[in-house]
C-alpha cells in the first residue's frame, strides 16, 4: 500500500512538473535576456532559489538578483525605487500585507498568466492576492496560524481533576479563545512556566488583534470608511491580551516579542499553548526542541462569534508595469510557483498555496511514516481553505498598524484602558484616512 502511494506521488509530481514546465516556456525562448529581480531573502526562502538555474537552462535567460533582503527591508527599498522612479527590475517578492501600498507598480497577472497557472492556486489565496480587483500577486506559500500545545499537560490526571474543579468543564485542547485564557491562567507558574504567549509588537500584534476582532464579530473598517475597531467587539478582543498579561499567564516580555521569540519560547518547553504558523512545526518536534514528541496541534480556536481566527498572509511574486519583458517574467514566476517548486518548499514545512502540492506533501509524509507532518499539513490545509482571511486590502494597513500597535501595547502594559487605547488609535487612524483624501 505504501509503495503504491509513494509511486502515485512520484508519478503525480513528475507529470505535473512536466506539464507545468512545458506550459511555462520552451527551450531557448529568452536567449540572452537578463531578468532583473528583487527577492525576499532568509533561510526559509532560499531553498526555492536553488531551482533558478533550471529555469535559466530551460529558457536561455539569465536571472540577476538585485536584492535579497528580509521583507521589511525589501519593502523600504521598493518604496525608495517608487519614489526615485527607478524601477529597472521585473519581478519582485511581495506579500499580501504589503501589496496594497504599491499602487500601480505591479501588473494584473491574470492578463499575462495562463488560466491554469492561476487556477492551480487555492481560490481563497488568489482572492487575498487581489488589490482593487487586480491579481497583482502569484502566491508561493501562505502562512496562517494554528494552536500548538504540550500534550502531556492534557494527559496528566491531576491537571484534569484540578482544572475541572476550578473551571467546571473538562480539560481538553481548547476550542474557543475564552478556553485558551482559562487554560493559560491555569497552567501558568511564572517565571518557570507560562500558559501562552503572543507576538506583541509591530504588525504582529496589530494582525493578532485584527483576527481576534474578526473572531469576536467586529470589523476593522466601518461602512463610513473610517476605522471601527474601537467597538465593543474590539474592546473584548483587546481585553483577552490584557487579561492574560495582568494574570502573568504570558511572559512579561511579550510586548517586545516577534515570531522568533514565541517559537523559541515554545520549543524551550516553558509555554503550554502557542499560536504559530506551520514553519515551526518541524523544529518543535526535532531534537533541538525540549518538547520533541510531546507536541499537539489543533485548528485555531473560535471567538465569541463562533468564527475562528485566521489572519493569513501569503508570500508571493509580482511583475512590474515597467518590466521590458513581461513574458519572461511571467514564465519565471510560473516556474517558481509550479508544483515542483511548491513541493520543494512544502518539504521544508512551508504551506504550499497549490492544493495538489499540499496533497502530495501529505502523501509523501504518510509514505515516509511521518505522522506529525501529515497532521501539520492536514490542519494547516484545512485552516487555509476554511478559516484564512487577509488584512484589509488598503494601502493604509501598514500606516494604521503603526498607529495601532503602540496603543495596543499601552493597554497591555496597563498604561491605558482598552477602550481609551482603541479610541486614541482610532483617532490617529482616522487622521491618516482623512489625509489620504
Amino acid at each position, binding site marked *: 500500500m505504501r509503495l503504491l502511494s509513494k509511486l502515485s506521488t512520484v508519478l503525480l509530481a513528475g507529470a505535473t512538473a512536466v506539464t507545468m514546465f512545458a506550459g511555462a516556456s520552451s527551450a531557448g525562448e529568452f536567449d540572452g535576456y537578463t531578468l532583473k529581480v528583487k527577492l525576499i531573502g532568509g533561510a526559509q526562502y532560499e531553498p526555492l532559489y536553488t531551482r533558478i538555474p533550471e529555469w535559466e537552462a530551460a529558457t536561455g535567460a539569465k536571472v540577476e538578483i538585485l536584492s535579497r533582503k528580509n521583507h521589511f527591508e525589501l519593502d523600504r527599498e521598493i518604496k525608495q525605487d517608487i519614489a526615485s522612479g527607478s524601477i529597472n527590475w521585473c519581478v519582485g517578492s511581495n506579500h499580501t500585507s504589503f501589496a496594497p501600498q504599491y499602487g500601480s507598480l505591479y501588473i494584473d497577472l491574470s492578463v499575462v498568466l495562463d488560466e491554469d497557472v492561476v487556477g492551480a492556486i487555492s481560490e481563497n489565496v488568489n482572492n487575498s492576492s487581489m488589490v482593487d480587483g487586480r491579481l497583482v500577486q502569484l502566491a508561493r506559500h501562505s502562512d496562517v496560524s494554528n494552536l500548538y500545545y504540550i500534550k502531556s499537560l492534557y494527559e496528566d490526571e491531576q491537571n484534569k481533576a484540578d482544572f475541572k474543579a476550578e473551571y467546571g468543564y473538562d480539560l481538553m485542547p481548547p476550542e474557543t479563545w475564552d478556553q485558551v485564557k482559562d487554560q493559560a491562567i491555569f497552567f501558568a507558574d511564572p517565571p518557570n512556566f507560562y500558559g501562552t504567549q503572543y507576538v506583541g509588537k509591530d504588525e504582529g500584534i496589530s494582525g493578532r488583534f485584527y483576527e481576534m476582532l474578526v473572531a469576536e464579530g467586529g470589523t476593522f473598517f466601518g461602512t463610513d470608511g473610517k476605522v471601527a475597531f474601537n467597538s465593543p467587539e474590539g474592546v473584548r478582543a483587546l481585553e483577552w491580551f490584557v487579561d492574560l498579561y495582568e494574570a502573568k499567564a504570558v511572559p512579561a*516580555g511579550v510586548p517586545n516579542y516577534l515570531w522568533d521569540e514565541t517559537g523559541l519560547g515554545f520549543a524551550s518547553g516553558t509555554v503550554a499553548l502557542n499560536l504559530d504558523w506551520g514553519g515551526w512545526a518541524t523544529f518543535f518536534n526535532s531534537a533541538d526542541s525540549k518538547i520533541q514528541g510531546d507536541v499537539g496541534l489543533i485548528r485555531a480556536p473560535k471567538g465569541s462569534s463562533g468564527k475562528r481566527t485566521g489572519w493569513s498572509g501569503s508570500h508571493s511574486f509580482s511583475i512590474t508595469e515597467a518590466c521590458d519583458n513581461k513574458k519572461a517574467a511571467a514564465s519565471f514566476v510560473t516556474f517558481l510557483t509550479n508544483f515542483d517548486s511548491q513541493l520543494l518548499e512544502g518539504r521544508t514545512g512551508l504551506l504550499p498555496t497549490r492544493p495538489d502540492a499540499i496533497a502530495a506533501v501529505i502523501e509523501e509524509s504518510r509514505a515516509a511514516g511521518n505522522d506529525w507532518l501529515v497532521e501539520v499539513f492536514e490542519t494547516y490545509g484545512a485552516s487555509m481553505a476554511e478559516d484564512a482571511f487577509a488584512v484589509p486590502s488598503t494601502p493604509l494597513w501598514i500606516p494604521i498598524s503603526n498607529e495601532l500597535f503602540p496603543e495596543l501595547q499601552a493597554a497591555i502594559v496597563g498604561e491605558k484602558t482598552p477602550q481609551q487605547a482603541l479610541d486614541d488609535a482610532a483617532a490617529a487612524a482616522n487622521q491618516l484616512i482623512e489625509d489620504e483624501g
Partner: protein
Amino acid sequence: MSVMTNIKRKLFSEQATPYVLLLPAVIMILIVVLFPLIFSLYTSFTGYKLTRPDTLFKLVGFRNYVRIFGDWDFWVAFFRTVGFLAVVINLEFLLGLGIALLINKITWGQRTMRTIMMFPMMFSPILVGFQFKFIFNDNVGILNNALQGLGITEAAIPWLVDGWLAMGAIAFAEIWMSTSIFAILLLAGLFAMPKDPLEAAQVDGCNAWQTFRHITLPFLMPFAYIAMTIRSLDVARAYDVVDTMTGGGPAGRTELLWTLIARTGYDSANMGMANAMAYVSIILSIAFTYYFFSKLVAARRYMGGAL
C-alpha cells in the same frame, strides 16, 4: 563676441584661478550636501508619500510642523533622546577614560589589548542589537536564567518592557559597542602627553589624584570633546540597536527620535512628515555639536596652546 572674450579672459585670469580650482569641489558639495538638504526641506512642507510620487507637489504649508509641535509623543521622544545622549556619552567617557588609563599602564601585551578593546566596534549594530535582545529576553534570555539559577531573583525581570530597564538595556548595548571610541582617542592623548609636567608635579610633591586632576585630565579634555562630538552625532541618530532590541516600544517607552522618524518615513511612507521631524531634531545635533566645540575651544585655550 567681445563679451565671450571678456568672460574667457576673466575666467583664466590669475585672480580667478583659485576660485576656478575650487569650483569642482563646490559643485560636488552642492550636489551631495546642499541639494538633498534643500529637497528634504521642501518635502517637509508637502504631504509627500514615498509610494505616491505625485504627492511630492502637494504643498501643505506648515501643517507637518504644526502637527509635530502639538504632538506629545514626538516631544517625549525628543527629550528622551536628549537624556539618553547625556547618560550614554558621560558613561562612555568615564569608562573609556578608565580603560585608556589602565591600558596606558600596561608594559607587556599592550598592542594585543588595544586590538581586543576594539572588537565591539567591529560588530554591526544590528548584530549587537540581536545579541543583547536575546541576553535580555525575560523568558529564555541568559541574564534572567543566570539570575534565577543563582537564586538572586525568583521573578522574570522584564528587561525590555519596563521603561527604565529597557532604556538601561539599550544604553548598556550602546556603551558596550562604542566605549572603545573614547578609549582609543583618550589613549592617543595619553601617548601624546609630554612627560615634563608630570615629572614637575612629582618633584613638587603632588599625589596621584592631584597629578591626574590638574595635569592629565585637562590635557585629555580636548581629546574627550572630540570623541564626544563624534559620539553625540552618532547617538542622536541611534537607530539600529534600538530598533532591533525594542523597536521603540513597548507603548513608545523606548522611542527615540530616529526610530520614530524611520517608522514614519519608511514603514508608513510618510516622508514629508518624517523630514519635518528630522529638521526639528537637527536642532538637537546642532546644539550638542556647538556645546562640545565651545568646550573644546575652551579646553585648548586652558592648555595655553599645548595642543
